[in-house]
């Protein structure tokens, strides 16, 4: 039994990869079968990942050497509590977004690219799962490239001029980013002669006084590389274009998951391989804290001036990545736990918002935030979910976003930096200034109201209509919205997972 569970995470990655390679072949034969097969694969990985999470929760940590080679020589796979949580999050979100894609992809993409779209989608999922479970830095680099290239393919699949331009920009900057990461891995290999994170930590501990400059260079290259990849503030230039011009299901995957797995990998290398002492001594912590604060404020400001809904959501991601990095930079138990919790909460919120934006575009063809009058009456369920996600984004109690922001505030008290609470509140208020006008417009104004009033007529009373979108689009939106409320009221289960990891890391 244990033998089987040890192999399961690795089999998840391999199964998804094989399914992804079958997609283009299947599409030549029957295009209709691609979406159900992708849903089936991501759904079964989701079930398996819940089983793994249940196994890990009993206090076991899965350590598996691929094809029988023990760790210093072979590739090792380690599944600790946060990793099992991330696998469940990735496969679960991919499963529901895949259900959403049934109708959305037919509407937004040309029929001929369907097979390639699902191939890139599953490849991206396999890359993300592989990246979080891997305990070997070079293997991480390979999965970073798999995730990166398939994410670019997800953007480029739309085929419009903006999407192609954004995809090329994303590809070039992401390649520079992974170049920095692989250079840094080279430095680490020079110092320690190992690629396995656990062994790097052992080798680095006695010799870290001898190579201060090499360690500084390695850490700064690592920070730049992962900063570009995860859109950390001054390096976020590719993100708004790529996320706003991609088809809505891909935007949801890119914004909710792809940006986050790099943060998990960065955190693993920083905390486990380099260790806390280097983290505190090399000023990397101060750099992360300052840039995170700038990201939280500047991302919200940039979002505020955008007219197009998806661009506004994309800039909001820049701000939210700042929150996660703030949690890592604080380096205290509550701060780190809140940062990790925010990865989960933000995945739910941003998928929900992007899927709502896609649903609104599907029914009405509207993209701009100024055209939302009366939307709350035309699409009550979609706008209801949008409202829940926006409230959570602002940090109103009973929604998931409140818990993580509260945790960050506690973390900044623990780190003796009470000024950061002010920044968290300010950023929350800025979030309110760009989400609440959309909601207010949707519920409290009506289309053509002003003209009707000028002619002296009385507007008809507002009536709720049912959303005119397929059930397959509506269900994922509702599931994500319910997930946000669940995380807001019962965060205990998830925090339990996270606190176990924090206890290992700190």
């Amino acid at each position, binding site marked *: 039994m244990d033998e089987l569970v040890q192999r399961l995470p690795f089999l998840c990655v391999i199964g998804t990869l094989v399914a992804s390679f079958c997609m283009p072949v299947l599409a030549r034969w029957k295009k209709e079968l691609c979406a159900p097969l992708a849903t089936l694969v991501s759904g079964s990985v989701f079930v398996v990942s819940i089983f793994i999470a249940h196994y890990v929760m009993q206090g076991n940590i899965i350590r598996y050497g691929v094809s029988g080679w023990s760790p210093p020589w072979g590739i090792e796979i380690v599944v600790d509590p946060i990793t099992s949580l991330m696998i469940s999050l990735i496969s679960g979100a991919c499963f529901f977004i895949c259900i959403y894609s049934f109708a959305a992809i037919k509407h937004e993409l040309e029929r001929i690219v369907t097979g390639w779209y699902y191939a890139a989608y599953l490849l991206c999922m396999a890359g993300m799962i592989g990246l979080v479970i891997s305990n070997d830095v*070079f293997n991480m680099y*390979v999965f970073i*490239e798999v995730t990166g*290239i398939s994410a*670019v*393919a997800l953007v*480029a699949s739309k*085929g419009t*001029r903006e999407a*192609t*331009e954004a*995809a*090329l*920009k994303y*590809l*070039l900057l992401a*390649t*520079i980013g*992974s*170049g920095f990461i*692989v*250079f840094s891995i*080279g430095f680490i*290999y*020079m110092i320690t002669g190992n690629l396995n994170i656990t062994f790097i930590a052992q080798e680095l501990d006695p010799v870290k006084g001898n190579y201060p400059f090499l360690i500084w260079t390695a850490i700064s290259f690592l920070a730049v590389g992962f900063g570009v990849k995860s859109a950390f503030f001054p390096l976020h*230039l590719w993100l*708004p*274009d790529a996320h706003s011009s991609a088809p809505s299901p891909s935007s949801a995957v890119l914004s909710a998951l792809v940006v986050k797995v790099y943060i998990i990998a960065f955190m693993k290398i920083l905390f486990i391989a380099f260790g806390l002492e280097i983290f505190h001594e090399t000023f990397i912590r101060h750099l992360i804290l300052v840039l995170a604060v700038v990201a939280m404020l500047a991302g919200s400001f940039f979002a505020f001036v955008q007219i197009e809904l998806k661009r506004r959501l994309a800039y909001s991601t820049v701000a939210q990545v700042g929150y996660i990095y703030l949690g890592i930079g604080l380096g205290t138990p509550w701060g780190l736990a809140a940062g990790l919790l925010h990865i989960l909460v933000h995945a739910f919120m941003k998928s929900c918002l992007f899927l709502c934006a896609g649903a609104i575009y599907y029914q009405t063809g509207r993209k701009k935030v100024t055209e939302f009058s009366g939307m709350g009456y035309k699409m009550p369920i979609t706008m209801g979910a949008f409202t829940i996600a926006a409230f959570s984004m602002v940090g109103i109690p009973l929604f998931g976003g409140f818990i993580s922001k509260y945790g960050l505030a506690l973390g900044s008290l623990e780190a003796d930096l009470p000024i950061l609470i002010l920044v968290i509140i300010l950023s929350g208020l800025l979030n309110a200034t760009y989400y609440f006008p959309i909601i207010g417009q949707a519920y409290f104004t009506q289309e053509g109201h002003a003209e009707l009033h000028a002619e002296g007529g009385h507007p008809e009373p507002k009536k709720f209509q049912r959303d005119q979108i397929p059930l397959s689009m509506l269900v994922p939106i509702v599931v994500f919205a319910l997930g946000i409320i669940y995380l807001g009221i019962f965060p205990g289960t998830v925090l339990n997972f996270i606190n176990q990891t924090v206890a290992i890391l700190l």
Partner: protein
Amino acid sequence: MDLQLFLLNFPYFVAIILFSMGTLIVLTQPNLIKKVIGINILQSAIFLFYIIVGDIHGGIPPIYDPNLPDALYINPLPSCLMLTGIVVGFSVTAFALALIVKLYIYYGTISSPNFMKMK
């Protein structure tokens, strides 16, 4: 500065200079094909760097020879890792060129000064 030390570490300097050059070309050149060439220079710098890391002064290629029991072999691992790196570089180049062809159909040019501009 010690000349001997400089000469010994000369390949590292070349790798760093090539890496910076590649990054600079990608970020500053308006011509898209030149950007792809920049990506290739950057990746070649990484290959060079890894191969020097594995090199041992006076070592021979790591093919076991029964006649030389105390031979000094170089470390083959970084060179093997770079096989993966070469595959990645190849696929990124192919993908970027495909996207550039598509952009050429849309714009009729491969030189776009406003390309990296922030919107």
